[in-house]
């Protein structure tokens, strides 16, 4: 047992924290959230120059060949800064899926993803709102014509490509399409989280055989590992954000004086802060244990990831919600960063499978019929 970050992970965390503190302060996050098209093109270029989108891409394809642990260590920092970007969708989930397919598609796309020149959106959910192969209704065939609708597609306005999972004759089937393909239109949804999410409409869109990602019917199997890594990345993001909420609350409790002493000197506030600490630490190490299981290829890794995602979401949301009570009225104002973290945690808790989906996996893993 060794719960130490590797030297390269520590270096990555330190440099990411320093970069994000300087370049992505809460005011910037706030401005991006308020801007309906908010996308930090400058920051995306800068993190590409730092090699972040290429972290999970092999060296020979222009990435840095990092590990799952490297990516999660970085994502914890992204969460800590509440950094809004397509990083998890594009640089973690889509990148993992494309790498898994390999071949010409990977060779063509991965170098551009590593450079941040291309961004891949994920078009998975439909009206049911469930990340579940049985919930897929949109028919997919290649060659063929696509007509249908995907919901909750993040960052479609800046994506160059889109990974579409639909219902094929042989089962769930994945396609990778250029966003500019005729007949694809993105309609913005207005989310309280500040994330830019879209309805993606497909009107008689041409699908060619080489748009297929993997074999027809293999879509769910192909995307499974990518979703698991995505669920862990969202967990890491929530842990990082919850850590920051804990810090904001403790700092506030130290300096906010009422009744002649800091409110952190009153048990009611002390005990609330103690619960935040418990939630952040338990979530963090559960997430890292699941990450280890996944990397080590342990037989229980799927259940461990589901367990971590369900628990991290619950614990991080508890931190955000309790944080509002500790922070008092100032935390209710738009200019205070607390709500940004709360909303980021909320969005992350719903992405890559919500509690219902993951608890179902856990239920099966513990032997419930």
């Amino acid at each position, binding site marked *: *047992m060794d719960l130490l970050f590797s030297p390269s992970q520590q270096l990555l965390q330190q440099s990411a924290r320093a970069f994000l503190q300087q370049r992505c302060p809460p005011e910037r996050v706030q401005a991006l959230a308020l801007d309906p098209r908010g996308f930090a093109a400058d920051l995306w270029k800068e993190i590409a120059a730092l090699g972040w989108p290429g972290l999970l891409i092999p060296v020979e394809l222009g990435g840095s060949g990092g590990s799952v642990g490297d990516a999660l260590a970085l994502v914890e920092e992204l969460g800590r800064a509440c950094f809004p970007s397509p990083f998890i969708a594009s640089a973690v989930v889509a990148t993992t899926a494309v790498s898994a397919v390999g071949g010409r598609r990977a060779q063509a796309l991965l170098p551009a993803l590593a450079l941040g020149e291309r961004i891949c959106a994920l078009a998975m959910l439909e009206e049911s709102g469930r990340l579940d192969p049985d919930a897929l209704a949109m028919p997919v065939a290649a060659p063929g014509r696509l007509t249908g609708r995907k919901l909750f597609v993040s960052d479609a306005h800046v994506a160059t490509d889109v990974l579409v999972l639909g219902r094929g004759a042989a089962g769930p089937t994945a396609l990778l399409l250029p966003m500019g393909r005729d007949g694809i239109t993105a309609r913005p949804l207005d989310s309280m989280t500040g994330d830019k999410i879209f309805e993606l409409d497909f009107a008689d869109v041409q699908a060619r055989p080489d748009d297929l990602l993997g074999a027809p019917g293999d879509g769910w199997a192909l995307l499974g590992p990518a979703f698991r890594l995505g669920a862990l990345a969202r967990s890491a993001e929530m842990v990082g954000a919850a850590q920051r909420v804990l810090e904001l609350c403790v700092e506030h409790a*130290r300096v906010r004086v009422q009744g002649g002493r800091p409110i952190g000197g009153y048990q009611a506030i*002390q005990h609330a*802060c103690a619960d935040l600490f418990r939630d952040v*630490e338990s979530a963090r*190490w559960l997430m890292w244990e699941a990450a*280890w299981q996944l990397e080590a290829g342990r037989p229980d890794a799927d259940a461990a990831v589901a367990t971590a995602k369900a628990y991290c979401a619950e614990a991080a949301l508890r931190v955000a919600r309790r944080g509002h009570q500790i922070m008092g009225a100032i935390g209710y104002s738009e200019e205070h960063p607390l709500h940004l973290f709360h909303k980021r945690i909320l969005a992350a808790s719903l992405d890559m499978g919500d509690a219902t989906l993951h608890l179902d996996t856990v239920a099966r893993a*513990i*032997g*419930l019929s």
Partner: protein
Amino acid sequence: MDFGLSGPEQAFADEVRAFLRAHPPETFPEDGTDAGYGSGGHSRAFTRALGGRGWLSMGWPREHGGQARPMTYLLILLEELAAAGAPFGPLSGCLQVSDSIIRNGSETLQREILPRVARGDATFWQGYSEPDAGSDLLALTTRARLDGDHWVLDGHKIWSSHAGIATYGTVLARTDPASTRHRGLTMLMVDNRLPGMDVRPIRSLTGQVYHYEIFMDGVRVPRDWIMGKPGEGFGQLLKGLDTDRFWGRFYKAPFLRRILGLLVEYANTVRSGDGGARRQLAHAATEIAALRALFYRAAWLIERGLPATGEVAAAKVMADELGQRVLSLGMELLGPYGALRAGSPWARLRGEIEHQYQTSWGHTLAGGTSEIQRTTIAVRALGLPAEPRARA
């Protein structure tokens, strides 16, 4: 980041499992109540069996007869024992006291007591709380004065687990009558057989005896049966508090996992198709897994000598409150059967849920209340200012 076991560690886990298969836990007679922490009943026979394998002393330095095995081996042992429901009640006390004797005990104590602990012949009670010194432990009034080669001990301790069936107690007493609060306290090792000891059982709400109160009237304790030097008692207590809390609760996660297994089996047979129960049980499984991860984080810090006060206190709070939630869920699932005691007609799951449900209500009080733990996290780990103390 590596949460796995090394080859020799895995071999040790297999060895413990093989031992438990060859010596089924239920075949050992129990002489004391299971207090529900996850360490099962108090069984001298089982403790001796562990001693016979060399497992009670395996973490000790070689010069004290140990094998200097890393902490991970103890974690493995406790997890396997808890998962099997073995009666290892006295074990955590043995670990705590032997660790303290090795660090602070006189040569006499090391010579007299350690070999008995290693064999499984010595078990311990803690004499900290008093009727008027609970969360405010420093209000204690038990005192000891030096008279020739002995300390003369007078006082009244309470809520001491298994004190009536243990062999020795570690008693915190004021040895400097002029001192106040944390100064002038000394930890004495008291043999239960000494004249002047009166150990009386307290029947708990479960109907069984787990706690005792101890009246000490002119008990003569040999002068060198103390930890460290006179006056160092509180410092030692504080220093050992993190590890005491850790070893007193670490096995709660595997214990709750075992309880959850029973509830899953029950739900599958009696409440199949109950989606609400299914979700509640899966949810409990995630919390138990998180608790285990938090304990492993604390263990990792402790093993490296890093500060772990916040992590250990948080793990204790979580262990005890989660235990109450899991057992409450069990009572809910069992419905009217849940209240039936072991041995009653129609009792389910051997009456275990009922018993552990009741014991769980003591856990958020014992070893420092959850309120004390939260204050500890806030002040010592998060750096919040301590509440002003009321003027006496």
